[in-house]
């Protein structure tokens, strides 16, 4: 039984990833899709960081008076993931900026409505919305 229980961290990460993926596939609201992408991203980060954990280890910071006999968790996933978080917020901002522009062009952020308006040709949809507004 303990053979399998030691893998719980991966399973939690997988469930989180499934929730994020479901939001991205099933929901039509573009803002909601970006939220799903964020949950997906946290699950990937959690995956890396949980692999870096060493049982009985401590944060990878050398204590005063030498590191003799001190067990550290793996610092490499921490480095990669902390930069990934900051890059993630920058790309999230870019995605949200695109959503704002889509809303201004089409008047909606629901994916199915945008598809209906665009009708295969993006510019037609745009002029249709503007025509309605006038």
């Amino acid at each position, binding site marked *: 039984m303990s053979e399998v229980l030691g893998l719980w961290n991966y399973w939690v990460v997988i469930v989180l990833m499934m929730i994020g993926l479901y939001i991205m596939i099933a929901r039509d609201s573009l803002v909601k899709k970006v939220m799903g992408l964020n949950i997906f991203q946290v699950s990937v980060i959690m995956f890396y960081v949980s692999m870096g954990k060493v049982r009985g280890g401590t944060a990878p910071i050398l204590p005063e008076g030498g590191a003799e006999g001190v067990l550290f968790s793996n610092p490499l996933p921490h480095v990669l993931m902390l930069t990934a978080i900051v890059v993630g917020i920058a790309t999230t901002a870019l995605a949200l900026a695109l*959503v704002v522009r889509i809303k201004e062009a089409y008047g909606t*952020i629901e994916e199915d409505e945008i598809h209906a308006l665009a009708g295969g040709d993006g510019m037609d949809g745009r002029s249709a919305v503007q025509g309605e507004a006038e």
Partner: protein
Amino acid sequence: MDFPVEVILFLFLLATALTVALLEDLFAAAMMTGIFSLLSACLFTLMDAVDVAFTEAAVGAGVSTVLFLSTLALTAQREKQHPFTWFPLLLVILTGACLVTGTLDMPHYGDPKAPIHVHVAPEYIAGAERDFGIPNIVTNVLASYRGYDTFGETVVIFTASVGVMLLLGHRRRRPGPAHRPTITPEGAARMRDFAIVRVVSMGVIPLIVLFGLYVQFHGDFGPGGGFQAGVIIGAAVILYGLIFGLSTLQRVVPSPLLETGIALGVLLYGGTGVASLLMGGHYLDYAVFDSDDPKHGRHLGILLVEGGVGIAVTCAMILIFYSFAGRALAREAFDEGGGGQ
């Protein structure tokens, strides 16, 4: 095998994620993503990733929630209800099942003999004391061993904020509202009238900035560094803007300053590498900065590089906020100034 605190936090995390999935009120969902980030920051701390936890708390619970709320103000507060379909759920369950099968031969949680721990990591940990004399191993790996990666990521942040500026054009003035030189959004005016919010934030903002500077300059010794400091200081400035309005904030921190700052940060990072090239070393090899004491040279190099990252990230966060808030103000003024005529 007992990790009670982590298990409880994980259950909370899953519950929050499910709530985000089920909520149709996007405003509430945005607030839940803030809680989600805070919970994951707690989990990162328990997994010894203090630097990651720092970043996630400042980014997820601070900056990204503000960005989501600004987007909602510009788009829609609720999402439309759709009939439930089985296909996405089946697809997701299938993906999850495949991944669970894939984990069956993975190393267990916390296993010190896992492959991830036996290759480069011991070398990085040993090198921290031997080559650098800098206690925070994460800072060493970030700025020196993996300096190329970090440079690339700083450039990605630079590019993304340029993209946001191009898309939302924070400087563009729409025709119409020119007769109103200082635009004060109603929302900001009301925020300022809340005495508790105003007084508390005035007390807290200087402390957050001070803490950000501590995180920046003490990042060699304790948890911290340029990325964390950048988002913390950025969050403090954004809080000021939320309470006192964008136009007040832009008088304190004008956007040309930020545009220069973000480029300067990337330039400082790249320039440190070029300097090490000119002094006869490899790109981003800081040992050449002090020929007598390579440890001291590396320390100096890391300080410069982290400084560049800190400046770039702070300016990028504030500029992104300016772009979103400026868009909302421009639209408000456009509507009020008879834009519909």
